[in-house]
């Protein structure tokens, strides 16, 4: 499958190709191979739609309260797969992404739990919240560090 390279992007930016519209159809890149990274592609969006929309419902105070009060009954309202449901119930943050979750959505569960982004990030990276925080204070995860290659 043809990948769009930077030179072609430059042509698009200049309008040389953009003007062709549908006739200049290009093959679309379907997936990426970036270390330790989940790109929210159309395939992921389809897989994770109901999981993410469950998360979205937690923007409302009354829904957060209902979820906290009876997680099982609340989850019954959404069409999660058994694996997605288990990932939510066990707060398997990486698992949720593997099952189509998007971090901006799944993080809403963490907000409802009173957990920080650095806690969630640490879980996904296999380190504690404090270790994650220290890594960031020291300049973050840099090229060559674990999970970057």
């Amino acid at each position, binding site marked *: 499958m043809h*990948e*769009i*390279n*930077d*030179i072609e*992007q*430059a042509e*698009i*930016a*200049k*309008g040389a190709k*953009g003007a062709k519209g549908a006739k200049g159809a290009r093959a679309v*890149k379907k997936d990426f191979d*970036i*270390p*330790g*990274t*989940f*790109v*929210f*592609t*159309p395939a992921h*969006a389809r897989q994770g*739609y109901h999981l*993410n*929309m469950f998360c*979205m419902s*937690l*923007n*409302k*105070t009354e829904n*957060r309260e209902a979820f906290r009060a009876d997680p099982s009954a609340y989850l019954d309202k959404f069409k999660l797969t058994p694996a997605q449901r288990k990932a939510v119930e066990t707060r398997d943050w*990486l698992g949720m*992404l593997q099952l189509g979750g*998007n*971090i*901006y*959505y799944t*993080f*809403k569960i963490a*907000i*409802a739990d009173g957990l920080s*982004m*650095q806690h969630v*990030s*640490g879980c*996904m*990276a*296999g380190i504690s919240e404090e270790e*994650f925080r220290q*890594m*960031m*204070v020291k*300049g*973050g*995860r*840099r*090229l060559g560090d674990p*999970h*970057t290659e």
Partner: protein
Amino acid sequence: MGKIIAGIGTSHVPAIGAAMDRGKANEPYWKPLFDGYLPAREWMKNNKPDVAIIVYNDHASAFSLELISTFTLGVADEFLPADEGYGPRAVPNVKGHAEFAWHLVEQLILDGFDMTIANDMPVDHGLTVPLSIMNGEVDVWPYPVIPLCVNVIQYPPPTGGRCFMLGKALRQAVEAFDEDLNVVIFGTGGMSHQLQGQRAGFINPEFDTMFLDGLTKDPASLASISHETYMREAGSEGIELVMWMIMRGAMGDNVKEIYRHYHVPASNTAAGLIILENA
């Protein structure tokens, strides 16, 4: 006619707003970041626009996966801070500029940019944190704001090249307005950061410096950066930097850098800020 007098690029990390809202800006963790914002706030006071266009992204607040608009322009008289799960930020409501916003929408659509039009749209940290960064804690935001919301969550976002072209069209639309109006445009988000996956915490100062330098030296090359390059080099959420290309496109061909600040970390993110004026 309308005139774009300056462009501002800035990160919009929610923790920056939370640090201000909770009175933590002077704590050792945050002080170096906020100290670097002081000259930018001074500049803002001396260059108060009649209206600001703020290019930002919504983070599953106003919009969800139900409806994903690539470019949305807010035409309301007022925009309320969104509840992102903690209750809305205790910052002033954001006043719009409906007449000017509708003019921009009309011009952009007739010019080939098929904008979505929002009459009612809560605004999240993506828009309010840049206002806090540039204006500090205020009772009323000092100027009205036109929100320009860009999808960068669902792949694919618009390309950097398309964003650059939208910026150019926006400049023409601003200049076609009847009234004399000084406009500042914000491009927000970034810089390098990654919130998700095992690579969470990824930061790339070399990429960020290249990007900041390129805004004055070679914006056309920045406009050609591919999505994959952004995600690989600036982290999956670093792709937000395409929104800075709208700001840069709206400026003239030649710009001068007035101020720059760069600090790691703001939570998970490399926080950058740049002020550009036309040369």
